[in-house]
């Protein structure tokens, strides 16, 4: 027999299927294959060792500590709000990338790309809705998260610094939302951003209508507002600027700060709790 391939016996195969042995055979040959063992670094059996490995050998999960205090699990304590805020951020990243395939930040195109996206792109409307509603939700959940952190006094030592990072995060969350607001390039967008950026005219020293501007000599074409808009009104250069800020600069900065934020939660001894 040696060397000759065995002819499979139909009755035997049928038996394997019926008894379920074929499943365990297949899963055994899969999980013992080189591809599998090189991808997954430990077994799945529910042992304390695997519970630890599950966290420390996974790049996504290892921002968690391996063990936490029981109280940190209470939904009543955290409201899960930081986590939901992060989830909303991830949703906007994913749906935002899809939107970027179809959207061009050019005065002549932007609005019609939105129309195209809504009416012709499969699931385009859904992607746009999810992006917008997740962004709005993120603003609300980050405020609620902040309120929760305040009410539990979690900004007190040793977590002062993480609160400061948090204030940067809430600021960037609002800026992300605000820069995105312009991109549909419709009436709502243009005028909301006009109202918002008009404030910059009043910047002391640097805005052309602000206090002490006459000592600096700024004009409506060259002042704090025109730096933001790339001109003296909300036009195509502003659209391009807001697009770059919205899709590249602010997400990168906010993402980096989130990583620091999560890291500091661990370094500060995990979620705060009664001592």
């Amino acid at each position, binding site marked *: 027999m040696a060397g000759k391939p065995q002819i499979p016996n139909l009755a035997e195969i049928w038996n394997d299927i019926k008894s379920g042995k074929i499943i365990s055979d297949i899963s055994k040959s899969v999980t013992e294959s080189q591809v599998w063992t090189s991808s997954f670094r430990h077994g799945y059996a529910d042992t304390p060792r695997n519970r630890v490995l599950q966290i420390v050998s996974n790049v996504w999960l290892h921002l968690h500590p391996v063990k*936490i205090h029981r109280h940190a699990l209470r939904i009543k304590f955290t409201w*899960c709000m930081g986590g*939901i805020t992060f989830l909303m951020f991830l949703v906007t990243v994913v749906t935002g990338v899809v939107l970027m395939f179809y959207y061009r930040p050019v005065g002549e195109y932007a609005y019609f790309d*939105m129309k195209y996206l809504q009416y012709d792109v499969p699931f385009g409307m859904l992607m746009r809705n999810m992006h917008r509603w997740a962004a709005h939700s993120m603003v609300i959940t980050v405020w609620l998260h902040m309120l929760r952190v305040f009410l539990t*006094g979690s*900004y007190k030592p040793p977590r002062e610094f993480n609160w400061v990072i948090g204030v940067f995060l809430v600021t960037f969350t609002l800026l992300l939302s605000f820069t995105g607001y312009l991109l549909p390039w419709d009436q709502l967008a243009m005028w909301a951003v006009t109202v918002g950026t008009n404030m910059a005219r*009043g910047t002391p020293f640097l805005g052309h209508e602000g206090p002490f501007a006459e000592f600096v000599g700024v004009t409506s074409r060259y002042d704090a507002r025109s730096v933001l808009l790339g001109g003296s009104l909300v036009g195509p250069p502003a659209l391009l600027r807001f697009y770059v800020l919205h899709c590249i600069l602010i997400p990168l900065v906010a993402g980096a700060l989130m990583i620091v934020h999560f890291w500091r939660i661990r370094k500060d001894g995990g979620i705060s709790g009664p*001592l």
Partner: protein
Amino acid sequence: MAAPAKKKVEVVPEKLHVWPYLVRLEFLCAIIVMVLLTVWSITIDAPLEEAANPSKTPNPSKAPWYFLGLQDILVYFDPWFAGVIAPVLIIVGLMLIPYLDVNPKGNGYYTYTERKAAIWIYSFGFLVLWISLIIMGVFLRGPGWNLFMPWEYWDPHKVVALTNVDLPYAFGFRDYVWSSIFGGAVIIGYFAIGTAAYFVLERKAIKNVGFMRMFLKINLFLIMVGIVIKIVLRLGFNIKYVWVTPWFNI
């Protein structure tokens, strides 16, 4: 005292594995939120109005809803304050909270009785000055940024008499320079007296808390209260500015 009961809970070894106890919670929470978000996105479409048109200004023009609190303050303050200084003060003030609040109690659990002042101040700023102004801005501000009750028609021709005067004028000052000096005295006096009163009342705390902390704390507080006072002065007494100078008005 509730302390012994609390201690007892903590004596039991309280450490749990993150996998599965936390991860499964996060996962569950994520699923629920994603279902809600998906249903919301299927049922309600994001708005898209007509194409941007720089020559057609809508009335009212509103900033995105989360900035409407600031836009509403514009009624009472000039843009340099409402649009620039106020946001900066909010951001800086928030960042300073952990360094100004030296009360060691209430760290890591909900309590009202151990930190009443802190909770009152934060809730007032957040719920009244931020959230309620946003709600007002979204629902009650119509054409010309006038106030309309929900059942009222948004009449773009609504006429509101502008009878506001400056505070020095209301006090009988007619001369520009003297008005300016009076206004300055009111504002500076407000901060000086407020600060002094706080230091006198809390004189025992200065040694522990430190001068700088107390100074920043009371002045940030006075600014917040000052905004409310200005709103009341305008709505109740038709006062436009308190302090008029050639460079800025408050």
